[in-house]
């Protein structure tokens, strides 16, 4: 398999198998990290999560839409150093609004059905991270970067 395909596949595998990621945002008081339950679009070009509007992360996103989301498959074991893979998605976050909202929420809930009430709560917002690039780290120090070509993007 060519390297481009293996990297893409490794990224998609992580997106498919992991449920949680660490979201990094920047606010007036500096950087902030929070754990979110995410879902990815089939092509990996978009990542979605739901958050109450009152949270610090949402305030940060409103002020500065640039975010990063770290997703990894470590199991809290020393073997993680060579076996775990981690991907950092870097992109721009914004709240999803109608008419896409129902469709995207459907995708999100297909991944996290137990979050039905949470995702429908009027106090929550569904956030779309439009991914600009993924940085994949494998075997401790092997790093590759997968740039998303959004001009070819027809999914939303």
């Amino acid at each position, binding site marked *: 398999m060519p*390297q*481009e395909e293996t*990297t*893409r596949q490794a990224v998609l595998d992580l997106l498919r198998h992991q449920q949680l990621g660490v979201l990094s945002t920047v606010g007036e008081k500096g950087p902030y990290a929070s754990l979110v339950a995410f879902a990815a679009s089939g092509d990996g070009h978009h990542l979605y999560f739901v958050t109450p509007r009152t949270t610090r992360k949402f305030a940060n996103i409103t002020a500065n839409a640039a975010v990063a989301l770290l997703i990894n498959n470590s199991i809290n074991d*020393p*073997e993680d*150093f*060579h*076996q775990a893979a981690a991907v950092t998605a870097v992109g721009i976050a914004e709240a999803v609004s109608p008419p896409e909202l129902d469709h995207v929420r459907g995708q999100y809930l297909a991944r996290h059905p137990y979050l039905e009430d949470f995702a429908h709560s009027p106090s929550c917002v569904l956030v779309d991270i439009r991914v600009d690039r993924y*940085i994949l*780290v494998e*075997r*401790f*120090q*092997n*790093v*590759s*970067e*997968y*740039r*998303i*070509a959004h001009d070819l993007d027809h999914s939303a």
Partner: protein
Amino acid sequence: MTWITALEHLPAGRPEEIGGKGAALFRLRTHRLRVPTTLCITTRAYRDFIEHAGLREKIHLELHRKVFTQMRWEEVWDASQRIRLMFLRSPMPPALERELAAAVAVTFGDAPVAVRSSAPEEDRSGHSFAGLHSSYTHLRGVAPVIQHLRMVWASLWSDAALLYRQELGLDTATSAMAVLVQSLVAGEASGILFTQDPTRPQQGIVEAVHGLNPPLVDGKISPDRWIIDARSGTPIDHTAPETRDRWQSPRDLTAADALTPLPPKLQKQPPLNESQLATLWETGRTLAEREGTPQDIEWTFCNDRLVLLQARPITAAAPSANGDSDPRAWYLSLHRSLENLLTLRQHIETDLIPGMQAAAQEMAAMDPKGFDDTALAAEIRRRWEINQRWAKVYWDDFIPFAHGMRLFGQIYNEVMQPEDPYAFMTLLKNQDLLSLQRNRALARLADGLRDHPERREALAAGGRAALDGPFRRSLEAFIRTYGDLSCTVTGAVDCIPDDATLPNLLLEMAKLPKENSPSQKEGATAELESEFFQACPLASAEDCRALLSVARASYRLRDDDNIILGAIEAQLIAAAQEGRRRAAAGSEEVAETLTELGLERDRETPSRSATTPPPLVVDRQITGQPAGPGLARGRARVIQRHADIANFKKGEIIVCDGVDPNMTFVMPLAAGIVERRGGMLIHGAIIAREYGLPCVTGVVAATDRIRTGQQITVDGYLGIVTLGETDPAATQRM
């Protein structure tokens, strides 16, 4: 499971606790056969040691830096050496060390012992793999036994074991090594017994030598050999070796590798008499019957009493060790003894190198332009054959000789236990390599340009005619000796028409301040050398000096061999170039010969097109093996073909498949090296150390993943190449 148990006190012979050899000895004892006094150091001791020292994770990291199948044999060897040094340097649980010391002292006192591997894996695999793991003999006292115990443990991860890891089921999470410490039996005759010849089931085989067994097992001396009729137990054939002249004497148990002349009286007689042969056969036959399978037995007669050293079922040879297309058997054949290397060195220095030089000179004396078409076709073929012949010598003799460095490194690390596994290279470098001589000649030419703008202008404008006489003559003398650097081999010229490699290179070098040649640090080397000689474990001081000398010759040859071979290939290139001109002018005869020999075109592959759009996936950090310490930042110069080197600029980082001595002339200009080929002892790593350049080797598909002009950072401490911008201050902070 305890850490240490005497064989006779073991409740059961479980291979997972005491390994395959241990379990076999346990069964011999239950059959009431005589075996040496044996302490079993169980797999639990191994596990507790690696747990205590945190080695499991370190080994795992070492073996997973890269996808294992992408590791070259040299990288596997390097990894196994680094692991071995971890075993030697790591602390042992104090209670284990105390218990070991007490058990060894009480059981053996100061008597000589053997420390043998007994891996559960080897037993489970159903195949016999000779020489995967280490065993050591002739050790006396607690400290040497414990040091060799560490080395036997480490041999669970020997390069051979790693190459056969799949067959063995080798796994950092589960694999362990048991070790046997045994009294060294001073047998007057020893050998091997096969109760069934694997190819002729009706026969058994006995091989025997005077004295101890190790030189027979290691193939250092030839044995007497008997064929036994399996049904009647009578010998049906006896073959004596050509000479019985050396042995490992049972009367001198001081050194493991000392072979001494066999006393004249014994030279005339076979090691076994009829009655001993009968006793041996009967014992083996009974054992095979009780075990239900034919046996491969190592034995010795001590005071005329038979002692069995080990026994195992006769198994098929390792499936791929049969020499077919599996290269692993070939890799492992590259391990050579000091004795073998000394012979090889003699052959290389007195026969092969002079032979190659004579062949090159003989061809150089004949200008291909002077031949008519028929004679030229014949000459091309002759040169092709000469080149083939010496290329074969390169593989058969020069490549194995590179083990000289490895053997030295292994022994150096054993006794010096340095923090840096490659510290031994300090004792090998700073030699007058042919490529460094050429690079110095080049530096002198650059010196001649530095203060002469008019020469630089003339050279940049092209054409040597505009150069002043003295400089032109120096330049031409350089080309006569080393070629014009446009070819992949040193000594050839005109591989690229209108080539400007040499002028470009000289102009770049003239921009550098004077003196950028490898540093010489004689003082530190002399001190290290004397420290090594004091600690050297070989039988004699003479052997230690021979070892270092062989290692230095091996290091030198690793670099010189390509240049020496290149001088021959240069003559083939010259004839082929003339041939191509004739073929283009219509000579069918010459054209046919060129096509037949695959010489119709220059063998260089074209560069990748520069117009390919940038890929969506790019590497940011690639790991390889750290091969030259340091941190360097610069633009990449990717060498897809030799011609790419022509435009090398000062401060660039050379990215190539493999640095060979025919391209090292750019090293004074380079800031760092990135190489696909992996290993610490390859040309790239050697030359990086000579020039003190940061170097990372073993970077998979380096020349495809990195582009010329790209900003890269080479971390030669960790073996990491970072692509794209990095903080310039990061490299300055070091």
